[in-house]
């Protein structure tokens, strides 16, 4: 790879092209391997596909670009504090539409920071919720038979399953 390359182009699973800077791409192990293995110079016409849809990839790249400076150089405490606030705002997203996809993308792209952040966001959404609220938030269908449900009630007498 030529050192002059500052940004690379990748394709989403929908076939859209996206640019990501080299320093941001380094936050993902598979992308980093791609950088090492694939020719990314200007005369190379191979554009790698990332199995993440466009809507999700936009968010993933946004996260990478924001976190790359700190990941690459380290940062002061005030920067870390600012980044934390940014993460909270960044994670204010629709569960069904985006959060699931971010979780899967972060898992697939081996992005530890984003994966931890998305898991924590999902966990915080679950905390203190009733069973029916959890089903609603995460769009989960109750697939227990009435007998199984009765058994669960007996096993956890203190829990409200409504």
């Amino acid at each position, binding site marked *: 790879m030529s050192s002059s390359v500052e940004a690379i182009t990748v394709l989403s699973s929908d076939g859209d092209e996206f640019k990501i800077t080299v320093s941001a791409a380094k936050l993902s192990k598979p992308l980093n391997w791609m950088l090492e293995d694939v020719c990314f110079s200007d005369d190379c016409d191979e554009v790698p596909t990332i199995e993440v849809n466009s809507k999700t990839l936009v968010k993933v790249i946004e996260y990478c670009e924001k976190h790359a400076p700190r990941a690459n150089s380290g940062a002061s405490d005030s920067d870390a504090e600012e980044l934390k606030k940014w993460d909270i705002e960044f994670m204010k997203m629709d569960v069904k539409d985006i959060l*699931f996809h971010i979780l*899967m993308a972060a898992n697939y792209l081996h992005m530890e920071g984003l994966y931890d952040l998305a*898991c924590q966001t999902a966990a915080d959404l*679950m905390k203190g919720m009733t069973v029916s609220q959890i089903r609603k938030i*995460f769009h*989960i269908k109750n697939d227990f038979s009435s007998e199984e449900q009765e058994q669960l009630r007996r096993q*956890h007498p203190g829990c409200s399953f409504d």
Partner: protein
Amino acid sequence: MDMARVLPKDCMCKILSLTTPKDACRSSAVCLALKNSADSDETWEAFLPAELEHLVAQSSSTNLNSLAKKQLYLHLCDHPLLLAGNTMSFSLDKESGKKCYMIGARGLWILWSHVPKYWSYASIQESRFPEVAVLHQVWWFEVKGNFNTKLLSQRTTYDVLFVFQFGSEILGFADTSINFSLNESGIHKSEGQVALYPPIIGVKQRKDGWLEIKVGEFYTEDEEDGGSILEFKLWDFDDYNEKSGILVEGFEFRPKSPE
């Protein structure tokens, strides 16, 4: 899209392990796929203390290693592990999963306990320890001990509770103030007075059959802090009134319950 079906199990377990034991229990009733993750060892491992294996090895409970992690968690909430030659017990707070310890009568320093006429040790069914201390007669009542807070969960406010019971003939405790004090790393922290009998103000009935009364609280810092030595003491010798009729189970350190 259904989260519980779409996300890989290790991802679901990671999410659940970032909730609380109560949330994980409740999640097992959401759907079959979530139940599978919510009951798994991967999820419950996170709610168990890192040093548990070491504690189990120290205790006389040998059959615990075969339990699934969720079962082990629930077991440790209701069945304390006996440690340090059966003078101390370890258990988990069911709601939070935080560590609870109790120092039994044999792990405390009790004035005059070397004289069987004044204090004796007895084995009773209601105790988690092999022996409790039984007060027969003293004029100088003093029970104290110390505890290293590094054994406890970090960044948590703990209550200190005196755990006891009344015997058949209660003497010298009626409407009498008993002094207590708490020192941390040699520095005086708090003190006060409690009335044990009649058991009205502050005395609570426990599930295990004993009575308890709060005699202080403290906050645990980060692990790097190394913990501190907590010294606690309960005493009364005003007017040298004769006292008898109390059974001492021990002192418990338990995460402070919400008011």
